[in-house]
């Protein structure tokens, strides 16, 4: 109980040197619906994105990972409501801003200029009745009204080149582009105002593996050049291990483990993380029998008591059924740059 709010770390011994937070999510709670019928989709989640890093967020469908992304940007469609917490954005050389307390005008100004988003459905993310150019330019116009039209067009061309699309595609309508090209346009658009944070919600799930790798490679390259931070959300944990610096695992609306990618891959502490890692058959190494995770993901309307994972957990013991394990630095892993919410690895402190 006495643990300090987990995940809310000031730049201290636990974070690698030079890593300052850019986006801090503190105790965020998101519900669907209000009153009696409401369902808690994100429960008390705290997560910190550092400048320049790729933070992976993994979980099954219904784990709340997309709800978290939509919630922290306040883009969650009805009946979603945010019922608690803070989302603090640290401007470079400015005061921190709580995104949840911005008024409409402030929120509009903040959006895309500081935090942009690439959604899962590239097919549907672009307005079908406007050209690529018009959609690239209107976001610039909205945030930099004094920029001339020709300058905006120039910028739009630059952005397409940035993501490897020929500028003569500017006049195309979305239906004239392939799925991969549309997603690249979206990535280009996300970088239009050079935001500090780019949130990616399953950006490559609808694409083939070859296209997926091309786009991810480009993303890594762009991040190195432009220095933005990425919150990368996907159900494909094997992809995250390869592409992100740190990984947070969500289950039943809560973060159950957070660790550097390599540590999570080699030494996952939460049984759910372990199960998830073993849910992807390897392409290399010896062929072995894998089991996946028994049972089904939980129903948000009737969550198990205690640890939400305990009905599916092979290692569950008594406290798991009644007591909710807090997310804390595990006592048996002293290096301190990871947290887990599991009674097998209780916090030490």
């Amino acid at each position, binding site marked *: 109980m006495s643990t300090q709010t987990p995940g809310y770390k000031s730049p201290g011994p636990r974070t690698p040197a030079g890593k300052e937070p850019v986006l801090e999510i503190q105790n965020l709670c998101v519900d669907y619906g209000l009153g009696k019928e409401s369902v808690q989709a994100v429960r008390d989640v705290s997560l910190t994105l550092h400048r320049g890093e790729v933070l992976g967020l993994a979980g*099954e*469908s*219904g784990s709340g990972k997309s709800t978290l992304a939509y919630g922290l940007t306040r883009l969650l469609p009805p009946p979603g409501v945010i019922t608690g917490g803070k989302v603090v954005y640290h401007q470079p050389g400015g005061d921190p801003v709580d995104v949840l307390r911005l008024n409409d005008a402030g929120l509009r100004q903040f959006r895309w200029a500081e935090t942009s988003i690439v959604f899962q459905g590239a097919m549907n993310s672009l307005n079908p009745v406007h050209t690529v150019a018009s959609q690239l330019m209107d976001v610039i116009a909205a945030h930099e009204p004094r920029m001339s039209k020709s300058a905006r067009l120039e910028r739009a061309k630059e952005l397409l*080149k*940035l993501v*490897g*699309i*020929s500028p003569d*595609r500017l006049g195309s309508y979305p239906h*004239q*582009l*392939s799925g*991969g*090209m549309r997603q*690249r346009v979206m990535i280009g658009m996300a970088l239009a105002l050079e935001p500090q944070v780019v949130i990616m919600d399953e950006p490559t799930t609808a694409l*083939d*593996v*070859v*296209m*997926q*790798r*091309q786009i*991810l*490679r480009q993303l*890594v*390259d762009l991040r*190195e*050049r432009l220095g933005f931070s990425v919150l990368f959300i996907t*159900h*494909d*944990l*094997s*992809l995250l*291990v*390869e*592409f992100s610096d740190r990984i947070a695992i969500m289950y039943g609306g809560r973060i159950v483990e957070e660790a550097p*990618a*390599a540590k999570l*891959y*080699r030494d996952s502490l939460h049984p759910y993380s372990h*199960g*998830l890692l*073993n*849910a*992807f*058959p*390897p*392409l*290399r190494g010896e*062929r*072995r*029998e*894998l*089991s*996946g*995770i*028994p*049972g*089904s*993901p939980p129903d948000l309307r009737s969550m198990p008591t205690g640890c939400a994972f305990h009905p599916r957990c092979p290692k569950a013991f008594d406290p798991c059924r009644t007591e909710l394990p807090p997310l804390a630095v595990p006592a048996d892993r002293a290096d301190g740059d990871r947290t887990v919410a599991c009674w097998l690895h209780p916090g030490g402190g």
Partner: protein
Amino acid sequence: MTLTHTSDQPPAPPDNDTVLEADGLTKHFPVRRVGRQAMTRAPRVVHAVDDVTLTLRRGRVTALVGESGSGKSTVARLLAQLYPRTGGDIRLHGTSVTVRGGRRFRAYNRKVQMIFQDPFASLNPVHTIRYHLTRALRIHDNAGSGSVELQQALENLLERVQLTPATRYLDKFPHELSGGQRQRVAIARALAADPEALLADEPVSMLDVSIRLGVLNLLRDLKERLHLAILYITHDIASARYFADDTLVMYAGRMVEGGDSETVTQNPAHPYTQLLIHSAPDPDRIVGEGTPDDTEDSSGGEPPSLIDPPAGCRFNPRCPHAMDICRTELPPRLPVDGDPGHWAACWLFDAEHGPAKAEAPAKAEAPAKAEAPAKAEAPAKAETPAEVTE
């Protein structure tokens, strides 16, 4: 849930009888022409599947791997005789079968059943599980006589797919079940016909990651107990390696490589297979080794239009090893050295045309090695414009 045996190598199947064969299977879908086009232009078709030859054997899983649009699902529907084929032959136990509806179709699909990709769409939302399974049993005369035998048959089916106790599931509607449970019901429905061959069209790709393996393991268990011949269609080559005995790779409507799963995945011969394997997520590759490197990025671009596919090898516009002959001549199935049964439709393996014969497989063994860091930042490579299909 987990299986007790098959820990290392799957045990040799009881027999390797051929159940279902496709020989030169071809499917062209006509492109709808409107107005004047009907008169002026020659009829145009989508070459969805061209010249596919494969064999399903008793007690073996054959995987068919390909990207979306490669025609792999069409192959399943052709084999299920849900579409009439344009050319080629389908043989069940050696006899050619062509059916289009009616009693002969039922007789055929009593032996060959299909499992669909999306369990949320493949069960009718207005009917209970009991209705779905009862219909399948009745159609194939496996319902027994009387309600007691029917109930017994229903419970047996659900037990086979590990939905127990059966009575808890029988009277539920599909929307009351989770994705994994629904897919198990779909499998039970296919089993109601007591088939010999099962065509599984991406049976786990719509399911939550944590339960995919459970369904695959169930299918493997059923294969072993019922000696089923399974066609496993997937876009995930790693799961093909895990689940299938043999693996076939399809690209743009054609088969490009085939052989033992382990061989195909560990020692890919065709440049497309190499690209596929290289692109698949692989945590081992990167952990602790810095950023991912660019190997063959020249393969950018997308699969070709199937209305007007490239001449010769369909992969030639993206292939880093493309030679002149690849642009004109269709490569036949050529054996790959060292592995009996491993073949690739690639001129690199032709004695005459394949100068790179020795090089190509070698390259595949170490796809993860950093090769061309000098490429550094090759920005803004204009993507080949995708064919805009009409």
